[in-house]
């Protein structure tokens, strides 16, 4: 684990600076918060294309005869959905049904999985998988140090990939293909954290800067722009994607997070299942609920009120460049408020009118049916 005094740099650090990235400390990683500006970057991803350094994300490889068994046991989602060449978004659950992490598990082959984990949790996840493996015939490797990762996101991205990776164009959402790029073994998946169609490429450090330049060149005709963490956050929140450590953690369950579709109760036993069975039957006491504001910009930690009484606080919140108003999500009790229900959010000591909103707040091209078909 990095200490407070050591800051980690991705292999793309110099390139980020060259492109004008304003570097900040993000949970111990030096990453660009923005380049030309969050609004410009956000709009580029929604309308054409943007490119992100997401090398802080982790890669855990699970291989062996019992790879499937281990992942099936430790995940709330059904890994049978991840057939070779496909991935599944899932929650790794602890015995209390809290989240060890939220991940994407890609099945590369029936005995070989690539698990994309969050930056701050990669060591924790690795240790957790190892502790759960017991005598299973499985090899668990944390290769987060060995790989960089680039996300290329936006409606124009498929066009960019026509010549570069035609095999990737056929991928459905959450599909993955192994591909040699510039002589190195890479993983190209049709995934992302923006709500737009696009790809993420996991690649060795040695060629990542060149790959970034290749993408910039390929994206020139559609006006691709480098994007930072600022736009990454506004894009993911508009899309209703969870941020581990902020929206979910070891103490909130999948049902409470509003991601019930991730839970597959009928797949057989998995860690935390009994708790989830009970929560499903009894209902949750709090739920991560979306809201929009009429004025002002909500921030994480802002208190939420209903009928003058505090009912929760915001976990994630920001200005939505697409909706042009404040949006946020927070755990609210009562858990089943209907869209439109009036709320108030306290900003700088003042109560601002808000209302319950459907999540996702905005559906980009990633939500389209038939991607890759």
């Amino acid at each position, binding site marked *: 684990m990095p200490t407070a005094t050591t800051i980690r740099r991705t292999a793309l650090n110099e390139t980020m600076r060259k492109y004008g990235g304003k570097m900040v400390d993000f949970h111990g990683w030096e990453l660009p*918060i*923005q380049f030309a*500006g*969050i*609004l*410009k970057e956000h709009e580029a991803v929604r309308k054409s294309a943007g490119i992100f350094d997401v090398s802080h994300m982790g890669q855990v490889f699970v291989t062996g005869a019992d790879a499937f068994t281990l992942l099936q046991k430790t995940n709330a989602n059904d890994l049978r959905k991840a057939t070779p060449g496909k991935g599944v978004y899932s929650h790794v659950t602890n015995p209390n049904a809290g989240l060890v992490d939220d991940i994407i598990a890609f099945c590369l082959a029936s005995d070989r999985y690539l698990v994309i984990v969050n930056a701050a949790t990669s060591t924790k996840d690795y240790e957790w998988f190892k502790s759960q493996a017991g005598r299973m015939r499985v090899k668990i490797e944390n290769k987060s140090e060995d790989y960089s990762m680039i996300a290329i996101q936006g409606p124009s991205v498929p066009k960019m990939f026509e010549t570069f990776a035609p095999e990737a164009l056929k991928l459905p959402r959450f599909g993955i293909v192994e591909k040699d790029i510039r002589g190195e073994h890479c993983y190209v998946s049709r995934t992302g954290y923006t709500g737009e169609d696009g790809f993420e490429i996991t690649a060795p450090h040695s060629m990542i800067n060149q790959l970034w330049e290749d993408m910039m060149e390929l994206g020139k005709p559609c006006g691709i722009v480098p994007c930072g963490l*600022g736009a990454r956050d*506004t894009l993911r929140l508009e899309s209703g994607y969870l941020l581990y450590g902020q929206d979910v953690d070891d103490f909130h369950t999948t049902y409470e997070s509003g991601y019930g579709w991730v839970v597959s109760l009928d797949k057989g036993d998995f860690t935390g299942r009994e708790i989830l069975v009970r929560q499903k039957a009894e209902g949750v006491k709090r739920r991560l609920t979306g809201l929009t504001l009429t*004025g*002002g*910009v909500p*921030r994480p930690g802002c208190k939420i009120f209903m009928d003058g009484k505090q009912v929760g606080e915001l976990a994630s919140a*920001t*200005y939505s*460049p697409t909706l042009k108003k404040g949006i946020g999500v927070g755990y609210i009790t009562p858990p089943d408020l209907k869209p439109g229900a009036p709320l108030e959010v306290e900003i*700088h000591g003042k109560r601002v009118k808000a209302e319950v909103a459907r999540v996702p707040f905005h559906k980009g091209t990633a939500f389209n049916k038939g991607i890759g078909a």
Partner: protein
Amino acid sequence: MPKPEEVKYTKTHEWVHLGAEAAVGISDHAQHEMGDVVFVELPKVGQKLEKEKPCAVVESVKSAFDIYSPVSGEVTAVNEAVTIDPALLNQAPLEGGWLFKMKPSNPAEGETLMDWAAYQEFVKQAAH
């Protein structure tokens, strides 16, 4: 509207164009540091402001920033245009992006503020 050399600056990066009616805004350096401004909360006309006390809020996508009154006095006008189009603060912080005007109650207060050269030096020092 004033040129950067014609206004005075605070250590909290506001500018004030001193006069019987003084205009107040944020410096170009400030808007650059804040990033895209998306919301502005202004004081009310008639409101009495105290030097170095918070009197307005500017919100960028990432953060909220308090604006401190450069001098004491009474608000005489506010720039509604920036509440409708907050991006004016980024585009023209010294022109269309002014925040409010005030009638200073103690002209001597203006003398403690930095001129353009001193402010540039201040920003340069702060970067180290």
